[in-house]
């Protein structure tokens, strides 16, 4: 509770401070958009932080998995929509069916690619950061080029289920539907990850491994199995993040993952390596501040997220929730 108090005060200040300069209706719209953006970044950053924290791997290919998830989901959504017209259907069940099938495709493809990447290119370079950066950047180029070969270099229009489009009118304020759904999904993933990490034996071993993976090994646990599992789950989350981002922006392109990766790394550094809660807090901080500042001083938006990162590093070099190794 002691740890949460400054956080709650900080969050309240961050949320309310922009009201000084922003009119309340615009503030509410920006807040919903900021929370949604934060949740989407969280999907990417939560996997990255576990991979970073547990395996000490700098995975620059995480962005490519984000793109692959988006394209896998896009392909299934196009197929389903082409056959049965579920995206444009007024039926909520048909819309949800299309969305769930697209999510399943993103998860399966990104999970499978994650296992392949970990086994083939990451495993030989454990403990060698320079090689990890080089080889995962190389993998990013290959994976992006494969997307260009398979789907072409141009932007694709992502089919978005009808239920997810449009807005609700809440007390005369327009609240877009998709950001609210994205916030809900992000909260669900966060809850699921907390349950997995705090209530299961696998989660207990992963948390111990984040702190000291050598000790986990000498206790008789095959850390490489956990590495592969965490890498694959992290990749699947990136894939879902890519699909959601594609639906959020209603278009996808081969380089979309790389563009989001910078935000994900900033969030992981702000939140602290290996901390899922840190990733959530960092992602919401970045999402909200980006939207508020983009409204007031558009050119300063990226600079503010960098500024938050620098500030956090100066005050707490291990990040908000990081465990010093």
């Amino acid at each position, binding site marked *: 509770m002691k740890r949460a108090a400054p956080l709650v005060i900080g969050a309240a200040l961050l949320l309310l401070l922009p009201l000084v300069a922003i009119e309340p209706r615009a503030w509410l719209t920006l807040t919903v958009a900021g929370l949604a953006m934060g949740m989407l970044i969280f999907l990417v950053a939560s996997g990255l932080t576990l991979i970073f924290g547990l395996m000490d791997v700098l995975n620059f290919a995480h962005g490519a998995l984000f793109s692959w998830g988006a394209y896998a989901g896009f392909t299934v959504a196009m197929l389903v929509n082409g056959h049965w017209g579920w995206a444009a259907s007024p039926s909520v069940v048909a819309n949800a069916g299309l969305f769930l099938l697209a999510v399943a495709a993103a998860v399966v493809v990104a999970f499978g690619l994650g296992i392949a990447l970990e086994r083939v290119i990451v495993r030989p370079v454990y403990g060698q950061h320079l090689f990890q950066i080089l080889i995962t950047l190389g993998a990013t180029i290959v994976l992006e080029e494969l997307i260009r070969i398979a789907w072409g270099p141009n932007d694709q229009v992502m089919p978005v289920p009808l239920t997810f489009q449009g807005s609700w009118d809440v007390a005369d304020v327009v609240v877009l539907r998709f950001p609210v759904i994205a916030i809900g999904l992000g909260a669900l993933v966060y809850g699921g990850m907390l349950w997995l990490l705090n209530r299961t034996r696998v989660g207990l071993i992963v948390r111990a491994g984040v702190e000291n993976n050598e000790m986990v090994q*000498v206790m008789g646990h095959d850390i490489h199995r956990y590495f592969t599992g965490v890498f694959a789950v992290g990749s699947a989350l990136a894939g879902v993040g890519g699909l959601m981002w594609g639906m959020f922006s209603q278009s996808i392109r081969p380089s979309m993952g790389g563009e989001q990766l910078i935000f994900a790394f900033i969030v992981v550094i702000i939140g602290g390596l290996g901390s899922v809660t840190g990733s959530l807090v960092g992602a919401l901080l970045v999402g909200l501040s980006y939207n508020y500042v983009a409204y007031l001083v558009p050119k300063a938006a990226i600079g503010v997220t960098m500024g938050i990162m620098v500030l956090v590093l100066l005050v707490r070099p291990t990040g908000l929730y990081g465990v010093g190794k």
Partner: protein
Amino acid sequence: MADVLELEAVHTDIGQHHILQGVSLRVRADAVTVLLGRNGAGKTTTMRTIMGVLRPSRGSVRFEGRPIHTLTPHAIARLGIGYVPEGQGIFATLTVEENLRVAMLAESAESRERLRRVLALFPDLERFRQARAGTLSGGQKQMLAIGRALVNPVRLLLIDEPSKGLAPIVVEHLIDALQAMKRQATVVLVEQNFAMASRLGDDCYVMDDGRTVHAGPMAALAADSALKRKYLGI
């Protein structure tokens, strides 16, 4: 008595440095074998090589007659070797109970019974069961590190400098706990505190510059002032 552990001319490198330069030792069953030597003699590297954290470049490590120097650390641990590293290696953000549960190879009725025995052996761990391990005192952390190694049915226990940085009164309590533990497993103990080593040890090896330079009964070394001065500077 049969040898539980046998190292034969083991060489280990760390980066460019040739640390172990032909370590040979034998550990008798149900005995406490102490590794002594100055800082940098290679004691911790020997323990890490036995556990498979470091892979020897030459030589062999055999546990109960079986070569283990090619196995991974987790496979070695699963053979029944417990390890308490220098600096304890506790998980500071996990609770005391979680630290003990991570150490269990499986959560069964049998392992829970062993956990109950560990908590009986170290009452402080029972008292601070739900506290974060990082908040424990140095002595309590050491108890936790040893307790973790005992929640599995270990046949060999490697303990690296358990008394380091602890107050004399805590060391006394630690000696009592280790005396009780001697009945449960064969022990290899790295220790700089000669008084503690001589009270607990049955056999001893003295290491210097990555080699074993003396082997024999602990009592004989304790009685030999010239040898103690030569290798240990005491």
